[in-house]
Every structure is written in structure tokens, then in C-alpha cells.
């Protein structure tokens, strides 16, 4: 069993940060704060120039990182540093196809595995597109489902994913939302039996930002929630690792309250 495969056996928080944003030192401090707060999976963004799945918050952070000269090898190095500090937490880089295509699937797979990463999320790569490439081998590629994914396709995507299934909870891009969209809860209820049937845990993301959102989603059957923009908002607004840790604790508490 890889670190990632068991990660959501108990419902948990998948937390996203943009790699090396705002710089290496502060990135590591934020990541430490997340691990201390008890996240189940760390998702680390490798900046790409054209992030079509991301809303304004993550776009801003990615643009800042690129302007600071952050390159994929830097983020790989940062992941290695995180792995040194935290031997057990699963780490999953998140990026877009072109970054992987450019390095080469084999080299990406190998270098990230050596750095201690466990999986990969490519926001613009459905399973069909992944099959057209040489693919990732050591890294568990996590695929995404969305409200537009019908039941038949959902079963296929669930079969393709490794580690867990990433359920995009709404029609739209990443970004914190004040309220939980009722359709997100409906989606969770639709996904749960299909994912459970295959024994695949699933985490719900996009728009989730508060402890009560997390509690609702886990109560509805999710095995985890993914939160990114809410953390990045804190970083862009306040630059306070403690605030990032507090938000993570609120979310983890919400998940635990669901008492699944």
C-alpha cells in the first residue's frame, strides 16, 4: 500500500498550496502549518502559464510564483524538502499536461518519485488523454469527476483513478465560495454509491472553504474535502502561517464532527 492509497481510509483534508509561493521559506512554513493541523494529503501546485481550471485566487498566486522565477525543478526540490520534514504525509503535485509533457512522462514520474511524491493530478488530463501518452507509472494519477460526469462515465473515471477520486463539486473554476452549493451535496450523494462500490475513496473540492462545508460533505458521504483557494487567499491577504493552520484545524474539526 502506498502512502496515498491509505490516506483517506479515515475522512480527511486534502490541502493545496502553490509550490514555492510566495517563496521557498514561507511555502515550507505554510506547509508545516498544514501538516501540524492534521491534513491527510498535501497537494502542491507546479505553476503553469495557462491554468484554465483555476479561478482568480490561484491564478494570482501562480502568476506571482512565475514572476518570481519559480520553475518545475524548484518545486520538485521543495517537495523533497517537505518529504524530509514529514516522512508520512502523502504529497501529490498538481499541474497541467504541458509541464509533464515537456519534462517527459517518464522523467516526471521518476524525478517526483525520487523527491518523495506519491501521486499526481493533471487538471486538464482526463483518462482518455492520459491513455494517449506513455503515462505515469510510480506516481498514482488521480483523475477528476464533475457534476457534468454522468453515471456511466463516473464508473469509468473511478476505475481509472488511483489513490482517490477527485470530485469537482461545481460547474466552474477553483475559488473559495461563501456557501456550499446544494448541488455539490447532491453530487456527493450520487458519487458515493459508485465509488463505494469500487472501494475507491473520493474527496470533494472547488468552492469548499469552511468547517461547516466540510462537515456537510463528509456527512453526505465524501471521504475527504479538497481546499486550496481558501488557504491561498489567507496567504495573499495575511501572510500568516498561524491563520493557515487555524483554517486547516477548522476544516479538520468539521470533518471529524461528521463522525463518519
Amino acid at each position, binding site marked *: 500500500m502506498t502512502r496515498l492509497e491509505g490516506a483517506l481510509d479515515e475522512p480527511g483534508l486534502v490541502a493545496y498550496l502553490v509550490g514555492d509561493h510566495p517563496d521557498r521559506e514561507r511555502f515550507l512554513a505554510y506547509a508545516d502549518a498544514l501538516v501540524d493541523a492534521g491534513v491527510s494529503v498535501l497537494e502542491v501546485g507546479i505553476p503553469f502559464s*495557462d491554468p484554465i481550471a483555476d479561478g482568480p485566487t490561484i491564478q494570482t498566486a501562480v*502568476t506571482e510564483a512565475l514572476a518570481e522565477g519559480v520553475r518545475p525543478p524548484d518545486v520538485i526540490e521543495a517537495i523533497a524538502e517537505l518529504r524530509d520534514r514529514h516522512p508520512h504525509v502523502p504529497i501529490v503535485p498538481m499541474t497541467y*499536461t*504541458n509541464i509533464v509533457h*515537456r519534462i517527459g512522462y517518464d522523467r516526471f514520474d521518476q524525478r517526483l518519485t525520487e523527491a518523495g511524491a506519491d501521486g499526481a493530478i493533471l487538471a486538464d488530463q482526463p483518462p*482518455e488523454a492520459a491513455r494517449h501518452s506513455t503515462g505515469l507509472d510510480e506516481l498514482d494519477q488521480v483523475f477528476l469527476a464533475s457534476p*457534468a460526469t*454522468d453515471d456511466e462515465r463516473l464508473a469509468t473515471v473511478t476505475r481509472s483513478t488511483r489513490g482517490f477520486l477527485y470530485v*469537482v463539486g461545481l460547474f466552474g473554476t477553483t475559488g473559495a465560495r461563501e456557501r456550499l452549493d446544494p448541488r455539490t451535496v447532491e453530487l456527493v450523494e450520487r458519487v458515493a454509491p459508485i465509488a463505494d462500490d469500487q472501494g475507491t475513496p473520493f474527496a470533494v473540492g472547488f468552492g469548499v472553504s469552511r468547517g461547516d462545508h466540510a462537515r456537510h460533505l463528509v456527512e453526505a458521504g465524501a471521504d475527504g474535502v479538497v481546499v486550496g483557494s481558501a488557504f491561498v487567499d489567507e496567504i495573499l491577504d495575511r501572510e500568516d502561517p498561524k491563520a493557515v493552520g487555524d483554517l486547516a484545524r477548522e476544516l479538520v474539526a468539521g470533518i471529524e464532527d461528521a463522525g463518519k
Partner: protein
Amino acid sequence: MSDPVDEPKDGYFLHHGGRYVPETLWAALEELGQAHDEAMADRAFREELEGIFAEYGGRPTPLTHAPGLSEEIGAEVYLKREDLVHGGAHKFNNVMAQALLARRMGKSEMIAETGAGQHGVATAMAGAALDLDVTVYMGAKDIQRQQLNVFRMRLMGADVEPVEAGAATLKDAVNEAMRTWVADVDDVHYCLGSVVGPDPYPRMVRDYQAVIGRELREQSLEQTGRIPDAAIACVGGGSNAMGTFYPLRHDDTRLIGVEAGGEGTDTDEHAASLVAGEEGVLHGALSYLLQDEDGQVTEPHSVSAGLDYPAVGPEHAHYKDTGRAEYVAATDEAALAATRWLCETEGILPALEPAHALAYLREAGDEFAEDDVVALTLSGRGDKDVHTLRDEMDMGEIA
């Protein structure tokens, strides 16, 4: 060398193309591909489109013999006059067909990206004609550079949304249009402006632009008794070129695509993704693009805004790899000079985009035999470029 495929399989022209998109768009692309196939198989749809092309668009456009060019080049040069279609560019063919398809699919709104504003204006026009709401995404920097086209879009009732992200130009406008589409995929049709993007766009836009090549082939047979020995077109995203090439692909015709060479393809200032780019994935398709060593997409440069795009349609990547078409580049300077050349020689003001094709013709004239029929697609008229032309020419770049 191998023969190119006629149709993509699972969205791939052998190796290039595909659907590299967020999962939310998968179903919409599937639906769009099916709707397009059904429409093309439906005689009523085809007849309605042909009616619009003829009565509203002024098709067929003429194939004009260019005696002055022919004499200078030493071959029989013919111009396919897309500059004479309604709106002044081949963009018309694509937007009218997509608008008709959108209506057939029950969509009430179209979104589009635009760089210089040509595709935005065309989409606004199609929306007004076929009663669909139109929102156009345009980089904030482009909005400043292209005030007149912004005005034309608004005049035809479209909303123009400024995009501040990234470098605030065309590539960012496509990103934003895709993000918006993800958020409202049931009601909205994304009217993409070229043979780029995820499947089915490359083949769909090609099918709508293929009217150029079909007419050209027939007119050439009628007027010269033969199918062109060579067909030349400029390549931005590649829609006027693929529209020209596709109906000629099984003929013994040299197909030549001319990209924007900017300051030269040995500099960083160009938009020649096939000639000088490398393979990669942008806006949903695996093709050739301009990128740095890490895979970050770089900003292209061209004097012609319509060619200023860092990627190119995947079917062109396929034609390049199979050798079915040749791809070359012409510089800003050569295109400006070719613009003046056509004005003075034939009394036609071309858009700066097809001026790149003319620049190639002018330089490579020797390659053609005296009785060769050489067809060049004049994808648009140059009225939109007079400010640029005046500025560039005042600067003394061409004598």
C-alpha cells in the same frame, strides 16, 4: 512520409489533437461533436447554411486571376477572395455555421475569444443575425490596442469582457472563455475562432471553412481547366489554411502554409509555431507551440494581430509530420512590403495576415513553372490594418 488521415480518431489526428480539458467540459465536447456530425448529415441544415452563405455572405467568393502578380512571379496566380465575403474575412464562414449549430442545439448564448477583434466582430455579427446573445473575451491590453473593433462589437450588441490575467492578450482570452464555459456549459456555446482547441473544434471549424477549398477547386477547374498546382495560405490558428487545404488533400497539389515570422524565426519575436515551435499541449490540444524549456507558453509576436497566437491547429501538426503540407514563415517586414505590392499591382488591399502568404509567393516565385496554377487564399481585406500600415510605413520600414 505517410498519408494524412481524413478524420481524427477519438479526437486525434494520429498523434496530435485530443481533448486536454477539465473534466467538466468532456460531456459538452462529446455533445458538440455529435451535434456537428448530425448537422452535417442533415440536408436541411446544410441548405440553410448554404442559403446564409449565398444571400447574407455573398458566396461563392470569386477566384480572381492576378495578371500583375502572375507576370512578376512567372506562374498563373489566382486569388481566392475571402476578403469579399460579408465582414471582410473568412471568419464569417465559421461563425455563421457555429451560430446556426448553437441555435440547433438550443443554446441561447455564445461566448468567443478574440485577439485583434476580428473573430469577436464576426461572432457579434453572427449573434445579431441569428438572435443569440454574445459575450466576447478580450485581453485588456488588446482592448486598448483595438478600440475600433471593440466599438464594432458593441455596436452589434455584444458584451466585451476585458481579461486582465496573464499578459492580457489572446491566449489569456481563450483561457478565460474556457473558464466561463466550464461555469455555464449547458446554456452557452463556445464559438472558438480557429481550427484549434479540443476535439471536435479542429475538425468542426475545418468543415465550416472547407467551403473555401471546395469553391476554389471547382473554380480553378472551370477557369483554368486544372486543379491548382499549389495552394498557399497564411496560418495563425490555421482555419483559412485548413479550409483551403482539406478539399485539395487528395490532389496532386502542393500545400503551403505561411506563418508569421515576426522579426525572424531565429529571434524570440515571432509566432511561427510549426516552423520554430515544439510539441506541447495548450487550450486542449496536443500540437506545436511556442514555449520555454519548462513548458511555460510564451508570448508570440507578429505585426498582424490575427497571426499572433502561440499554438496552431493539430491537423496542421499532422500535415507537417506526414509531409502533406509545407510550412514556412514570412517576416513582418516582408508582409508589409507584400501588402504594398498587392495594392500597387492589383489594386487590392489585403489584410496583414494573408500578406504573409503573398510575401512567401513573392520570395519563392522561382519555385513555380510558367504554366503552374498557383492559388493563394486572400483571407481578409486590409481596411482594419490601415492604422498599422500608416504607422509602420511612416517609420520608413519600407520605402
